[in-house]
């Protein structure tokens, strides 16, 4: 079984806007497109004074020197490394903070964590058996674009000669391959994706094609030695005299199918026709393009250059997508998550175009290179695959939804993800969305919009944005409806959200994952507000019955986390429906919704509601103020008007001893000591989900003090919803009016 070790590239210590451009290409690039390199040659490093696992200090220092050596030994580079003297002390968990991440001390510490105790101290107990170490530049300047200091920690626990579950071991060759790779980062190199197929084919016989700077250690023996791609990368950053004059180069730009928009993040590979696996060099399009605050060198947008090619040799040129799993610290290229390509393809000379014919993506036109004479303007226009490019491929060309309900179908196999397409907030970081198409909707009123892709034949995701195409703001998102909705499709999408009249929405519909697309079915509906968006006040009850009845408030209050059971409003503010700041009273607007599929209450499955008891305000309470009776009447009328089932208002005696025989009893304040209360029964029970009654005004007058001033006042609303199976949802709500 192969062990897998990942190299994780992340910023360690950052004092300015970071710029990263990985591949066998510069690790850091400034906004002018200049790679960050060491200005000091030989590049210094300061080894620790202690041991490294089973290695004594001298052996450990030799190990480090040996791991730098492959880079310095490349004949076409002038980079060299030097042991600039040991650190002042043996670094341990107790003093590591003195050395790690310190700029300006002119030290480049190579820390020997001999038993993993430094890793354990910094990352917690257990991680010393998992983290092999870290290495890379610590400090750099953007003008000039230079690396000034770097560091490394080597975890000697992996080479201490003890191999057990609590102290794992790897071979010294694997450990060496890891740090040859890491010292490539130390020198300023990023990752390479050259020969992705060979890396992932589980065939060790062809692993000599995998670069040392591949993001994952596939073969410790093979990756301990540099391949051509590594050699060209280090030579391009640190060229020996005559490197560019004695080798060939191919340069150009990758364009989207429209032929005018540069494409960032395609992996461009030149392969010698006679030895395509080994004589191969790659780089990511746009690897030097690093705009700061939106400003960059436009000529570097989508630009690539492949150096170090053998003069007089024919090369094919191709593009492929960066592997979707190469994200974050494993990233390759300037685009993270990796950009999706419609289809891998070769450069096809005079036939190069966005369509086939004339551009067969499998057909290559060789390019002959010459020493010191770059072949320029070798531009690749991406093919738009099998389907045609949908008219709404770009946000700016979104299909306007005129009226609701709306339904559309589209073939999205020809759609492509644009670099300007915003990421989907419901997808995990680094997970790609592809084959994007766009719709636009202006909300016809206050209510709920439901968007879905039910019936589509591929894995979809829907993202909804406000703002503009240039500056979209995430509004809603859904990837999969999940297995609980077989009628839609597990991998299809549905998002439901509140809208305000006139709100403009930009809707991005995409393939979840790498490019594929398919037959898209897109539906949009509009309805009145309900609790399906999770914005109601549930009143707090048992988790299994919380969704039976909830209060829908107008206007929608702002909640942070789980809403409380209290609504507070200042007289005359927007929450006060009467809008009058001088009437010393707040009017709350409440509607009751039953059988709610509220996404917050997963344990509550809506069934039915057969009865609603309004226990406060009491229609005939003995101490009722006029507004209490009016509030009760308004609420009861709203409950009875729930548009499902046949409702009947009747009368009950909560004390049980005395009957309330006629409605007049319930309508008479003080009758039976206020114990007769009205309820609403539904026959048959309400079974339709997400049914809401009419909004009811509930008035809370401020307290009129003896001094003539007005103070805060509170009213309570209590309701019990009962199902035909006697599930009970007891909801309490406190309405508080403030001056």
């Amino acid at each position: 079984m192969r062990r897998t070790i990942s190299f994780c590239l992340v910023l360690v210590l950052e004092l300015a806007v970071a710029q990263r451009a990985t591949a066998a290409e510069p690790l850091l690039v400034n906004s002018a497109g200049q790679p960050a390199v060491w200005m000091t040659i030989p590049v210094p490093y300061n080894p620790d004074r202690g041991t490294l696992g089973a290695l004594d200090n001298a052996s450990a220092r030799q190990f480090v020197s040996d791991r730098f050596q492959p880079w310095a030994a490349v004949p076409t580079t002038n980079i060299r490394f030097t042991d600039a003297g040991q650190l002042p002390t043996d670094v341990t968990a107790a003093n590591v903070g003195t050395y790690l991440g310190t700029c300006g001390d002119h030290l480049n510490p190579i820390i020997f964590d001999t038993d993993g105790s430094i890793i354990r101290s910094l990352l917690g107990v257990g991680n010393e058996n998992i983290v092999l170490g870290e290495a890379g530049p610590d400090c750099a300047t953007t003008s000039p674009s230079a690396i000034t200091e770097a560091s490394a920690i080597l975890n000697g626990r992996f080479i201490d000669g003890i191999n057990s579950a609590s102290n794992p071991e790897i071979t010294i060759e694997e450990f060496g391959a890891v740090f040859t790779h890491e010292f490539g980062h130390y020198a300023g190199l990023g990752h390479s994706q050259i020969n992705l197929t060979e890396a992932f084919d589980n065939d060790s016989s062809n692993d000599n094609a995998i670069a040392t700077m591949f993001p994952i250690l596939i073969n410790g023996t093979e990756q301990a030695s540099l391949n051509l791609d590594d050699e060209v990368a280090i030579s391009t950053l640190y060229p020996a005299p005559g490197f560019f004059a004695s080798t060939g180069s191919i340069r150009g730009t990758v364009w989207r199918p429209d032929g005018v928009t540069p494409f960032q993040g395609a992996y461009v590979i030149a392969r010698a026709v006679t030895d395509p696996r080994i004589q191969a060099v790659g780089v990511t399009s746009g690897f030097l393009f690093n705009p700061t605050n939106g400003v960059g060198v436009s000529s570097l947008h989508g630009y690539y250059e492949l150096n170090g090619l053998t003069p007089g040799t024919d090369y094919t040129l191709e593009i492929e997508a960066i592997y979707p799993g190469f994200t974050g610290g494993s990233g390759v290229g300037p685009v993270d998550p990796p950009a999706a390509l419609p289809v891998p393809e070769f450069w096809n000379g005079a036939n190069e175009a966005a369509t086939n014919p004339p551009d067969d993506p499998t057909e290559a036109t060789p390019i002959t290179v010459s020493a010191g004479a770059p072949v320029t303007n070798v531009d690749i226009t991406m093919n738009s695959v099998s389907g045609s490019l949908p008219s709404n491929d770009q946000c700016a060309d979104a299909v306007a939804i005129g009226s609701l309900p709306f339904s559309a179908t589209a073939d999205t196999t020809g759609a492509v993800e644009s670099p300007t397409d915003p990421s989907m907030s419901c997808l995990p970081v680094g997970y790609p969305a592809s084959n994007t198409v766009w719709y636009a909707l202006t909300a016809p009123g206050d209510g709920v919009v439901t968007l879905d892709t039910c019936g589509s034949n591929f894995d979809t995701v829907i993202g909804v944005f406000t703002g503009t195409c240039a500056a979209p703001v995430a509004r809603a998102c859904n990837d999969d409806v999940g297995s609980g909705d077989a009628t839609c499709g597990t991998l299809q999408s549905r998002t439901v959200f509140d809208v305000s009249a006139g709100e403009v929405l930009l809707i991005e519909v995409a393939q979840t994952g790498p490019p594929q697309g398919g037959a898209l079915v897109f539906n949009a509906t509009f309805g009145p507000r309900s609790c399906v968006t999770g914005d109601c006040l549930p009143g707090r009850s048992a988790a299994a019955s919380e969704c039976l009845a909830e209060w829908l408030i107008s206007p929608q209050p702002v909640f942070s986390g789980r809403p409380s059971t209290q609504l507070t409003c200042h007289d005359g503010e927007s929450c006060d429906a009467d809008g009058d700041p001088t009437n010393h009273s707040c009017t709350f607007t409440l509607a009751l919704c039953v059988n709610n599929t509220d996404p917050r209450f997963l344990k509550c499955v809506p069934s039915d509601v057969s009865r609603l008891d309004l226990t406060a305000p009491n229609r005939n309470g003995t101490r009722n103020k006029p507004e209490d009776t009016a509030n009760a009447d308004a609420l009861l009328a709203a409950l009875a008007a729930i548009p499902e089932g046949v409702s009947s208002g009747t009368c009950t005696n909560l004390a049980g001893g005395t009957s309330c025989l006629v409605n007049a009893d319930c309508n008479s304040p003080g009758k039976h000591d206020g114990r007769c209360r009205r309820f609403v029964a539904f026959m048959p029970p309400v079974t339709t989900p997400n049914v809401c009654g009419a909004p009811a005004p509930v008035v809370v007058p401020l307290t009129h003090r003896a001094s003539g001033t007005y103070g805060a006042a509170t009213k309570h609303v209590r309701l019990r919803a009962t199902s035909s199976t006697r599930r009970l949802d007891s909801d309490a709500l406190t309405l508080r009016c403030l001056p």
Partner: protein
Amino acid sequence: MLSTVGVLIAAVTATSATMTMQLDLAQIVAAAGRAFVGRVVAVHAGRDQAGIPSTWVTFTVDQVVKGTLHGDVTIKQFGTATRLEDGSLLRMPGLPTYAVGEEMVVFLSGESEAGFSSPIGLAQGKFPIIRHAGHAMVAATAENARALRSVRRLDKPPPTTAEIPLNDFLDQIAQLVAQSNRQ
């Protein structure tokens, strides 16, 4: 202590790399000192008593998956994701970041003598929870994709797996915890 940076070099940036063994879910479960389903309720960055830039993350625990926990959990994680008031930023490669309100299943290392703790395998030990139409799902990230692939019922191709139901994930973990306890 880690010295303050930012005053010595005008425009400095830095990059580094971490090397980690890639773990499957069983290895993560076995190595974790404690694990739980929780929600981030507070994130605070600063320097600890030794002066090391650190991030304190507080979770409310919804369900204990491994170990014994009482009430909220606060960890001190090495480094910071955002710049401190003194301008310094020490970001350890591969360590996860956190946002208030974020839900996750997290497998934590034991606390070191210096008081640090972080997910096992760094970001490999953090499994974000997302909700789709009321269904709680565990989301794949670049770092945890290998571990998620080792969970049964995963129906999407590696390594860009999307998500699996939280309940399936927790069932699998319960079995692995029981298996780990027997060993």
